[in-house]
């Protein structure tokens, strides 16, 4: 394309996202580095322990690898389910399997406890059923609990990223391979899998980084005997204010993460095959064969059990109260949300927290989507550039949340009057965290568009921009929507960076949930659960709406089209 000339538009493609990264990632991180180094020069490095660091790094890697593997094992068949089959309740299951992603860890821990804790419903049920003395399921404070929580959290990433790509894989290619004598397993291995590879790698990277930098899950589900680099960084920073050591640990974590990321991107990312996009519903079918029906049934059951049931338990906690005579339904917790019982100055009605969360989430996801699209466009045509950008935007994910939060605070949060900037920084931080998701969803979709389509539009009189608006955007629309939903969910559920930048008068929903949990008392606990249910409901509702969005039609011919869609 004759666009090698650097014009203003092309430059803006680059400057905006790069400037954003520079201002809100590199500058804050630079602040931290400078501070850590000056402290190092002052006090030297204390508390360094090779054995501890080695053990911690080892465990961090081990649990992340294991979690990622398990997440893929569950996520792949689930992605297959969503991308190939049409069945009743699919929309619900799709949204429900995304919800875990937005929940604060405190709440997830509560949900798991209500379900499989020592006095959880499942244990009580099993004990009653088999007349057991002791709870048969006991995973509290174990590696199993960590893995379970990671799978619970991240399966939705695999489902969304992979199934979006899978929907685009032409069924005819698989059929062709079948007719060439390949067994279904062989077809999967030598046709489907290679075509899914870019998406798989994206999903793998995102999940791995999440697991590697995991903090809340390790603390709440794992217990004190487990420690990851992120936990150590938190302890060194927040407990001991040992910045040189915390900085060094952050660096180790970052190098570890980004090394692995670079390796994976370098070895695997290149294989993005342009495939003629298919209609939305084209590869979907109702399960017909007994095997297919069984598969759909089993997968739906597994997903409900692993991803939906803990949510149900959580909702149950918000709507039921227990005393000696058993469980009773109540709306008390919800009613109490609207009451400022102690006339606290920090009381914020749930509707306001909700409004704040929605405003932040919409801003952050629009920002992330816009920047993601700019980046995806900027990287086009150059494999090296695309890899570099992918690597660059993943940096914030591999960075310790504590370090990053502190960096943002140091860069923009200090000084008299800085307080009024906090509400602006929150969506910016959220957008930064969501950016890799957006890019990883949009870029493969964009690269999968055959060049001929763009060329055809060009010869028909469409400028680059019109090609983007009329051809490419509509084709990647579903991916863009998915990206938007993810950015939105990330922002709604984000806690770490938010807690650094939040102002008591404008809390988000997760912050509000957390506030209720810092006090004893059944009512506080119930209200925390009720607030979580509000968070869940809002997220579910927005996702249902977004899932049903069609691209605005263009021209009048389109309106009557697609009678069977």
């Amino acid at each position, binding site marked *: 394309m004759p666009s090698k000339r650097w014009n203003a538009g092309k430059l803006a493609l680059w400057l905006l996202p790069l400037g954003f990264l520079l201002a809100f990632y590199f500058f804050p991180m630079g602040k931290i580095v400078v501070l850590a180094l000056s402290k190092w020069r002052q006090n030297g490095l204390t508390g360094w322990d090779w054995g501890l660091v080695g053990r911690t790094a080892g465990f961090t890697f081990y649990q992340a690898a294991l979690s990622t593997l398990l997440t893929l094992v569950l996520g792949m068949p689930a992605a297959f389910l969503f991308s190939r089959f049409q069945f009743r309740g699919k929309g619900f299951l799709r949204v429900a399997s995304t919800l875990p992603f937005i929940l604060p860890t405190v709440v997830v821990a509560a949900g798991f406890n209500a379900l499989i804790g020592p006095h959880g419903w499942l244990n009580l049920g099993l004990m009653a059923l088999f007349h057991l003395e002791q709870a048969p399921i006991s995973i509290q404070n174990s590696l199993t609990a960590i893995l379970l929580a990671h799978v619970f959290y991240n399966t939705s990433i695999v489902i969304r990223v992979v199934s979006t790509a899978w929907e685009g894989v032409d069924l005819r290619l698989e059929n062709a391979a079948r007719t060439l004598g390949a067994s279904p397993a062989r077809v999967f291995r030598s046709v489907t899998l290679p075509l899914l590879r870019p998406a798989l790698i994206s999903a793998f990277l995102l999940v791995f980084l999440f697991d590697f930098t995991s903090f809340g899950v390790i603390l*709440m589900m794992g217990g004190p005997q487990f420690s990851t680099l992120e936990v150590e960084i938190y302890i060194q920073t927040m407990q001991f204010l040992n910045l040189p050591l915390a900085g060094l640990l952050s660096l180790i974590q970052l190098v570890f993460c980004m090394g692995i990321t670079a390796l994976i991107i370098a070895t695997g990312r290149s294989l993005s095959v342009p495939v003629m996009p298919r209609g939305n519903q084209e590869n979907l079918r109702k399960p017909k064969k007994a095997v297919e029906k069984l598969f759909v049934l089993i997968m739906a059951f597994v997903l409900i059990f692993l991803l939906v049931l803990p949510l149900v338990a959580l909702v149950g906690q918000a709507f039921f109260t227990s005393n000696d005579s058993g469980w009773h339904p109540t709306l008390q917790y919800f009613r109490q949300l609207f009451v400022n019982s102690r006339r606290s100055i920090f009381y914020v009605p749930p509707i306001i927290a909700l409004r704040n969360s929605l405003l932040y989430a919409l801003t952050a996801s629009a920002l992330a989507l816009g920047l993601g699209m700019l980046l995806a466009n900027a990287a086009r045509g150059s494999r090296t550039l695309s890899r570099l950008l992918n690597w660059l935007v993943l940096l914030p994910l591999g960075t310790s949340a504590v370090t990053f939060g502190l960096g943002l605070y140091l860069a923009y949060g200090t000084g008299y009057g800085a307080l009024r900037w906090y509400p602006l920084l929150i969506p910016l931080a959220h957008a930064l965290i969501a950016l890799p998701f957006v890019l990883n969803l949009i870029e493969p979709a964009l690269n999968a568009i055959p060049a001929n389509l763009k060329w055809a539009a060009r010869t028909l009189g469409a400028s680059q921009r019109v090609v983007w608006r009329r051809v490419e955007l509509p084709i990647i629309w579903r991916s863009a929507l998915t990206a938007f939903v993810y950015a939105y969910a990330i922002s709604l559920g984000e806690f770490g960076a938010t807690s650094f930048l939040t102002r008591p008068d404008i809390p988000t929903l997760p912050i509000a949930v957390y506030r209720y949990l810092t006090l004893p008392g059944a009512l506080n606990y119930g209200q925390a659960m009720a607030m979580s249910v509000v968070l869940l409901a809002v997220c579910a509702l927005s996702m249902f709406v977004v899932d049903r969005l069609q691209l605005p039609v263009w021209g009048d011919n389109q309106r009557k089209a697609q009678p069977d869609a």
Partner: protein
Amino acid sequence: MKKTIYLVLLVLALALSACQKEPAALTVMAHDSFKVSDDVIAQFEQENNVKVNFLLSGDAGSTLNRAVLSKDAPVADVLYGVDNTFLSRALSEGIFESYASPLLDQIPDALKLDDQNRALPVDYGDVCVNYDKAYFAEHNLALPTSLEDLTKPEYDGLLVVENPAVSSTGLAFMFATIAQYGDGYMDYWLRLKDNGVVVVNDWETAYYTNFSGSSGKGGQPMVVSYGTSPAVEVVYAEEPLTDAPTASLVGDNMCFRQIEFVGILQGTQQRALAEKFVDFMLGTTLQEDIPLNMFVFPANQNAQLPEEFALYNQVPEHPASLPMDEIEVNRETWIAGWRELMAQ
């Protein structure tokens, strides 16, 4: 695409304009547990014609750390929430300006830890072991009366504590054991460990998941929590309670006393207002508002206690305490030792 960007800018601009209407104000930095009634603050604002902004900055440790890190460009005028376990760090980092408030007269000397009055005591509370009354009654179990009792076989597996490396309650309880046993605290923890002590990371998990006396209905009838938690259980019960479902063990050195301080941040441009606010925090209006909001005891001896406090709280006669300098010097070593021991 351009539209999207404009939209984003518009939203940002709106958010910005909404935030810029604030008049000149006094900013108070505090930890997340800080709570106060709105009319109390309104009274102060009216009397002094000022708007008070609060900045809640995480737990006590994080709040102090953030104040230390923004020392050269302070975010706030007043900092509340540094406790005796962190006081030494706050003082040595020099984040406070001295202020000898006239109200210090009304505060017992035992609570005043800084002779230069850079940090002024506001309230105090004890970290104690709470127990589930119903469990002990049902099992006809005698209550432990000392730390040593907790290692007895009849309490095998009945206590849940928090990790001192990440939880301030866990840290306070560890300090109590150090106050009791000195360097022998490791040996004591070994015995606790052999007696099946359950360790979790945070207070929320310990209280809501493991403790049998809370709504979580967990497996341990004893939990390291606050001396005032029983009163909170009554105040925040779902249905009005006649008695607290839990109580605290207040044997000698079983509880660790935490004192919280307020101070004027170095470099404030509103010294006069900041002084007024510190006075206000130590005055009886706010002091009497403290107990039912934060569930700690007011430092001002003239402040009246609410009846819930008298009825449901057990106050230790001889709480454990450690010199703050010793804490600051040994904190890392003590915690590292504990982690090494308990991780095995």
